[in-house]
């Protein structure tokens, strides 16, 4: 018998605190698989966000830091500048990266900072109980857009991949999704490519991953995956937005 699926070495076997069916868990696993397969665990330093991923340091079996809300790219910059041959990644939600941390992510990208950002876009603030995010879709009901997000009041969801792709310093920018097995595999590929980009010192890399928040969307996990396909992908098209050769 050949082992097809097994927990990766780069994850401890601690239970995740995530809600049932939340795709944070899937993404953790595939990041860890990439680190295993590229044999980087002992060289890796990960930076957690404030957001549902805040405790990721309890799961990843490598050196980890916990950042202030939104500042992971600055912390990663500090680390990477001191340890240029290590693999440094951040794991950030859409509130963390696209709201409070906007300046830090835009500048990390503009500087061509040699770090890899895993960006979990679930169109909501999960951890704090379902407030609006900059990525919340038009019409979406959240606790701070109780009548649905209205563009005349709060504008339009920000497409971070497209925005960061305008920076020369961005070397690899891609948007993927994990709403079904095929896309999980594609996401894994993208993460590997992002890591490669960093290890080849080409500049800033980011994989934006469309993710679910069944709890705060008020859906069961399967409905949530369906929403990704039905509502999110049309506004947040998948694909590579920047590939520096």
């Amino acid at each position, binding site marked *: 018998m050949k082992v097809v699926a097994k927990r990766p070495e780069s994850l401890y076997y601690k239970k995740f605190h995530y809600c049932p069916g939340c795709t944070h868990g899937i993404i953790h696993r595939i990041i860890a698989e990439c680190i295993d397969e590229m044999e980087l665990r002992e060289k890796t330093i990960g930076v957690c966000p404030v957001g549902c991923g805040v405790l990721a340091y309890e799961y990843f079996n490598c050196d980890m830091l916990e950042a202030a809300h939104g500042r992971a790219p*600055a*912390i990663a910059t500090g680390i990477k500048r001191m340890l240029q041959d290590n693999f440094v990644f951040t794991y950030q939600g859409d509130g963390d990266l696209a709201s409070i941390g906007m300046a*830090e992510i835009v500048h990390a990208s503009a500087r061509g900072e040699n770090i890899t950002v895993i960006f979990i876009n679930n169109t909501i603030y999960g951890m704090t109980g379902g407030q609006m995010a900059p990525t919340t879709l038009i019409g979406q009901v959240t606790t701070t857009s109780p009548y649905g997000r209205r563009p005349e009041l709060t504008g339009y969801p920000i497409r971070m991949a497209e925005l960061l792709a305008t920076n020369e310093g961005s070397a690899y920018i891609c948007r993927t999704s994990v709403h079904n097995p095929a896309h999980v595999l594609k996401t894994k590929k993208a993460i590997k490519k992002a890591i490669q980009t960093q290890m080849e010192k080409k500049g800033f890399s980011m994989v934006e991953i469309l993710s679910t928040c069944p709890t705060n969307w008020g859906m069961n996990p399967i409905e949530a995956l369906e929403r990704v396909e039905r509502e999110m992908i049309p506004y947040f098209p998948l694909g590579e937005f920047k590939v520096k050769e």
Partner: protein
Amino acid sequence: MEKVLMKGNEALAEGALRAGCKAYFGYPITPSSEIAEYMARKLPDSDGVFLQAESEIAAINMVYGAASTGARVMTASSGPGISLKQEGISYIAEAELPCLIINISRGGPGLGGIQPAQSDYFQATRGGGHGDYHVMVLAPASVQEMMDFAIEGFELADKYRIPVMIMAEGTLGQMMEPIILREPVTKFYDKPWATTGCKGRKPNVITTLHLPPEELEQRNKHLKNKYDEIKSKEKRAEAFMVEDAELVLVAFGLMSRVAKKAVIEARKNGIKAGLIRPITLWPFPDQHIIEAAETAKIFVSLEINMGQMVEDIKLALNGRAKADFYGRIGVIPNPEEITKVVFGIAEREGL
């Protein structure tokens, strides 16, 4: 020994380099910018990293990241920028990451002015950020001390795993005096906690999150114990003519030199004046105050603000003697002015 004429800001930067500082992250602001500019010129020589951050917030978080790899790193700013760093400083204090934070102070509140002030005393000594924490605060009084305290600051930071702040009036950063260049530091501390990649050891984690209340309380107690240890070992002050002093001036930083001149003038006129200069603002050298209270009837806190350190003096005195305050803002008062103040108080108090 040959002396070199240097600006305070440059002397501080040079001191940091001699202490083995490997990275500077900062955002320009008057009157601190020369520190960044000096580092930008010199750090590349020692394969160090100079990076102008996009903001003070980014800068302090870059410090967090770089310090967590075990390197000696620093940032510098002035009032408004230090305010922006408060969240980050609170994080760094909790995570116990050694680093150097410089406040070359100007007048506030708000945008205020760029002239010298000491009105960030509370912010520095009471932890302007959230939570129970402290940074050590050193207050140099000369360009020489700008260099010396940068070196000493890194030592203390590593020794206690604590962020150390050097706070100096804008004028001290901008002025030039001849100084002796110190020898480079060659002995460094082990940092087994650093996050450098887990090759050959268990993974390290640096976090400030402690959700279980018991864990949070434990962390706070651990920090408090450390702070108590620092309080018992590291209070520093310079005492000048206090043995028999009836009127004791208390002043820190450049202001203390003005006060010293006033003490000399006062003594010439038969007033038994003395001076205590706190070198560490936190921990505050209360023991020096208490000892001086054996002869002194009145203490006068001289500050370039509206009255902040005077609270620490009162706390030290606990009713043992009177504590008065004289302050200006945006200007360093002159020796002439302070002398007049001292004469006035001496007369009022019948000294």
